[in-house]
């Protein structure tokens, strides 16, 4: 348990599994004896909109949402989403970006261009930026849907959380039939950082 509150922002596109991810991270924080709050987005945005899950833990947490400039880590499931939420990051915070590209409506309909290099701009602003093709790793592990767990692996190793703690949480939360692939994907991610 720690005095300072840790703030993690998980951002992506509705349907990418941000909810499951925040639940795994929150479960780890519970196991380690913290007070934990998680704010989720259900409903309309889950239909392909920009979604955010917020995990906060420490000795005592009040607000379930993270203020701008306060997030320690942003975990982005999609390339441009980290940039959308970047103002929530502490200046010395960390960003992990999956290079998966999901075109938003204005891009699909040709009204805007997809800012393909935006993750590089983020990296230029934030020294602690890691860019990864988690989707590719997940495919190699046997299921494209395990990309989120690859990212959980990277996040937890970057934060110095013991792998066993996270594997325990994954085992508790992920359905049994998907467990093996997920553990494999997690370990792949964990040894990347």
């Amino acid at each position, binding site marked *: 348990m720690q005095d300072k509150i840790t703030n993690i922002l998980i951002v992506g596109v509705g349907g990418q599994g941000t909810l499951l991810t925040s639940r795994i991270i929150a479960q780890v924080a519970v196991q380690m004896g913290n*007070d934990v*709050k998680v704010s989720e987005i259900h409903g309309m945005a889950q239909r392909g909109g920009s979604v955010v899950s917020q995990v906060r833990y420490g000795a005592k947490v009040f*607000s379930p949402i993270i203020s701008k400039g306060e997030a320690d880590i942003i975990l982005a499931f999609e390339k441009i989403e980290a940039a959308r*939420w970047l103002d929530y990051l502490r200046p010395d915070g960390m960003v992990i970006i999956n290079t998966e590209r999901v*075109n938003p*409506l204005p891009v699909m309909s040709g009204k*805007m261009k997809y800012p393909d290099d935006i993750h590089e701009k983020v990296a230029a602003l934030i020294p602690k930026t890691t860019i990864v093709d988690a989707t590719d790793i997940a495919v190699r592990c046997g299921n494209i849907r395990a990309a989120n767990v690859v990212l959980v692996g990277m996040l937890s190793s970057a934060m110095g959380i013991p792998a066993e703690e996270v594997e325990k949480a994954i085992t508790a939360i992920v359905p049994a039939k998907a467990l093996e692939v997920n553990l494999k994907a997690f370990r792949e991610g964990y040894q990347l950082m």
Partner: protein
Amino acid sequence: MKKLLIGNEAIARGAYEAGATVATAYPGTPSTEIVNSFAQFEDVYAEWSPNEKVALEVGAGASIAGARTLVAMKHVGVNVAADPLYSFSYTGVNGGLVIVSADDPGLHSSQNEQDNRGYGRFAKMPVIEPSDSQEALDYTKLAFDISEQFDTMVMLRITMRLAHSQTMVETGERQEVPLKPYKKNPQKYVMLPGFAKGRHVEVEKSMLELQEYAESTALNRMEMDDTSLGIITSGVPYQYVKEAFPHASILKLGLVNPLPKELIKTFAAQVDKLVVVEELEPVIEEQVRSWGIEVSGKEQLTLLGEYSAEYLAQKLTGSPAPQSFGIEQEVPARPPLLCAGCPHRGVFHLLRKMRLVVAGDIGCYTLGAISPLEGMDTCICMGASIGTALGMEKARGTEFAAKTVAVIGDSTFVHSGITGLIDVVYNGGTSTIMILDNDTTAMTGHQDHPATGLTIRKQPAPKLDIEALVKAIGVKNVRIVDPLKLDELEAALKEELARREPSVIICKRPCALLPEVPKPTYRIYVDDEICTGCKVCIRLGCTGVSFRDEEKKAQINPGCVACGLCEQVCKFDAIKQAEV
């Protein structure tokens, strides 16, 4: 052991521990998980009702029959249930009844931002507001006691941020509460004017008793610290206040109607500056001011949307806004959109192509209103489409009706579209109505409803036959069309619009996300030799097809489920099928 629960699960758990045996709801974000999780408990009854009015009426019956009963809905659902609400507040309860109103400041998934604490004042019922999942559980339990003690239903008012935030909860044991005896008591339960007069007296009496209770209940508490700033708050904003002003003195209200006048006066007298922090309407602030207490609130704090610790710190103590990296402006917006393979997509493509006036309704298909589909003219509330179309016809004549359609989902039709259709037939309308039957309530996360033939527990139930129902209402022209067959749909629409009679086209195809939908047997690709880059397929707004700027050609993306829509709209046959 403590565990994480979202507020909605905690409410269900609280009702279960309080011995509730009946729960009813119509789905609606952010309330849906409440009765859905209650249904997971054994030995209790839970139902998806056809709409919120019925949910509250079934709840009232269960309460009068002696059971502790939970009824849940989103904020606008309370409007639908308002008629029984205003009279059930007169009859009072037998078994305790708690009605949950899940409000949505910030409009995360709603059509308005109404503040349902107002219902407490108008319908004369106590309103309780928890600020985290533990309180959601504890206050729900207490709400059942208050309901029985004061012979009134109790509203548990929550917001999206409580409903969908997980916080730590210590759960308890279920208390087995036997049914209260049922006794015939028409003076209490038959709201004839003569009897209702007597009940009104009782209601005012119990409101006075509740006012006294409010002064001493542990639901309201003072947290005294530095007295230069005193804040009255409730619900999730309490958490923001604690975070932004760790040393301020706070009066935290768990019972927000009726308010503890004396407690508030005592608190006000002890602080130099008094502020009310409440999202949306100044419900507390205006009452406090009416008692001659100097107080501020909405002159600094907005009536719009959600608050946050950061917002409160900026507004109340002028702390600077955090610096911006300025990169956000470069990011295209990402609104929600219809899924790849969604059976609604083709409908709106067609409606726009045919330049029809579209009286729309609420559901996933409301996304057909936004770019690039832009196939909807109006959307007011659930069930409004059919009445709106009829009103347009009555205002502008049958010529106008010949280019107007009402579009409504299956769950919404059952919820509140049926009476509109009766009106069309009864009053000689000629409207063409499309019922988008995707065999589920997709928008709120795929709940069953009477026309899916399954209950909340996925048990088989008699299946409401929409076609037979529509015919029984008196619509002679009823047909069923597959909305992914655009030619057939277009032909059907033209024929029915030309008819000077009401018609219903049932667009029948299950939601693409339902597990029973078979995997595609072929895949779709773009033949680059033929593609002219005309972008007709792109105007479908589907994640399955995108445009390559460099080559000026369309391309099929991995998310494609081979629904075949882009293949049908392509004028050059450049989009083709191939083996998987």
